[in-house]
């Protein structure tokens, strides 16, 4: 059968493409169905045969979603929390990474060890004491309780430290000679040079903040403060589940991440891989 190598190779290539197409269909199907389902009524979703083309119920579903859980507000909450979290956390990580890479200060070794330790210890261990801490501060059901505890991100710190270790000291030094203070040197000279790594850090942090579920679930208990994952979870727990509204909500929850991925694909994947290369 291997008498004709060209034919065998063609067959092999066909098989490779066939497997990729199959995998692609499996990957895409839930998305396509989610988008289709968001435009139909719940009754249509479970109709036999199922709807394959977009329907005309999108606005009705949106109105119902808005009425049942105030989805506009929920989206706004999620976006606000994720943006604030990402901005502050990225800045804190970049600063700490720079400090660890470029300064030798007392306690540096301890801090580095602590950063590594936080990476190995699952955050679930902290749930109970953090919950009690937030309760005693009277912060339950507040946004600062959602954002503050997880701002320091060890993954981000190590990523940025790695970025700064290879950074030439000459550039920093010449900025100082020009009379730049330490902080100004950092913002004006150093930070713009590590844009790619910063991009990876920002996409990674935003994704984590947008996906965050168990902590906001514990912290937030009034509906108009919910984040998207918490609101979706609430919808699944109702006695009569509004499935098409749920699909629309899931679609809206996924769109920001998908946009981020399509726009910043390289940084997105780099954020993931920076862990792998070090592994």
């Amino acid at each position, binding site marked *: 059968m291997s008498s004709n190598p060209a034919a065998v190779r063609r067959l092999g290539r066909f098989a490779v493409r066939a497997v990729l197409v199959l995998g692609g269909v499996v990957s895409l199907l839930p998305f396509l169905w989610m988008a289709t389902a968001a435009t139909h009524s719940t009754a249509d979703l479970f109709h036999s045969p199922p709807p394959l083309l977009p329907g005309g119920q999108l606005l009705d579903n949106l109105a119902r979603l808005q009425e049942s859980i105030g989805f506009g507000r929920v989206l706004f909450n999620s976006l606000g929390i994720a943006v604030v979290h990402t901005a502050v956390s990225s800045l804190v990580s970049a600063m700490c990474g720079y400090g660890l890479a470029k300064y030798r200060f007392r306690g540096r070794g301890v801090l580095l060890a602590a950063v590594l330790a936080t990476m190995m210890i699952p955050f679930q261990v902290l749930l109970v004491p953090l919950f009690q801490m937030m309760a005693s501060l009277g912060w339950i059901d507040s946004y600062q309780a959602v954002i503050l*505890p997880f701002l320091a991100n060890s993954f981000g710190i190590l990523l940025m430290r790695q970025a700064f270790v290879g950074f030439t000291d000459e550039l920093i030094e010449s900025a100082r000679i020009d009379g730049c203070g330490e902080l100004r040197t950092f913002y004006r000279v150093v930070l713009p040079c590590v844009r790619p790594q910063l991009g990876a850090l920002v996409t990674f942090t935003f994704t984590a903040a947008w996906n965050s579920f168990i902590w906001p679930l514990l912290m937030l208990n009034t509906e108009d403060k919910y984040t998207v994952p918490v609101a979706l979870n609430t919808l699944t727990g109702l006695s009569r589940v509004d499935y098409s509204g749920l699909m629309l909500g899931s679609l809206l929850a996924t769109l920001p991440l998908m946009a981020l991925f399509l726009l910043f694909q390289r940084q997105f994947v780099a954020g993931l891989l920076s862990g792998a290369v070090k592994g």
Partner: protein
Amino acid sequence: MTAVNTHERSVAPACAPGTVRRPRRRGHLSGWIFAGPAAALFALFFAYPLGASLLQSFTTEDAGAVHWVGLDQYQRMLHDPAFIQSLLNTGLILVVQVPVMIGLALVLAALLNQSWLRFRGTWRALHFLPAVTTLVAYAVVFQVLLKTDNGLVNQILGAVGISPVDWLNDPTWARISLILTLTWRWTGYNAVILLAGLQSIGKEQYEAAALDGAGTFTTYTRVILPQLRPVILFCAVTSTIGTLQLFDENYVLTRGGPDNATLTPVVYLYKVGFQQFDFGYAAAIAWVVVALIAAISALQYLAFGRERRR
């Protein structure tokens, strides 16, 4: 001590070229300006609760009063069927889902690495797409896809003559549903990581193996896979850690049910801590999860990491 170091600034510009002061020699104060915010956050929201949680795991709370109970909370787990069930469920995912997923991801990565393949970036993005879905949203979508009465999956099965499956209400099928859901989301993610590993292996190695008369399969098993070992190990360790911390997917999909069939230690911890408010026991469960993650990761390193090159 810091006062002296801050004065270095005024001296630095006077240095002759060639003896340029290395910035890392600068003072404690400057270093702490940059590292301080993160350090304060870690102390407040990591170190303190970590210590509190360890202490808490040796206590019990009774009508507001805290009592020291030694290892009682840990001993409780040995006789707690729900906790043991959660470990067994996790073990099943570790033994079945993680290897299957990494195997699939390896195949996918090898296919995506074919140099003759056109639009490789698009193919890669397509297979990576599931990893971009919001965690809770994809669990919700699968809940609807897997609905027993006229859910899309059962309708597709019905079209080829298979009777409806009670995906989320039957203990065995619920476990299978969870495994399928996890595999759907994370296979492409791992494939992209493995692909990056494959791309660091030079083309000449494939050619050399082919010259030596090795077939495609032998080339992969004998030449490529051994070099990919560190990346595979990374995928295995992160997947194991993710499995031991599993919460979002099974909490949304089945709430850990039916009959605790998809209960995981973290979902159980959540129920014990925040539905029964048994904080001491929840803390003890959390520390067992920590110990398991440390032990299993160490085992994986010992088993697969030993022949690591470089």
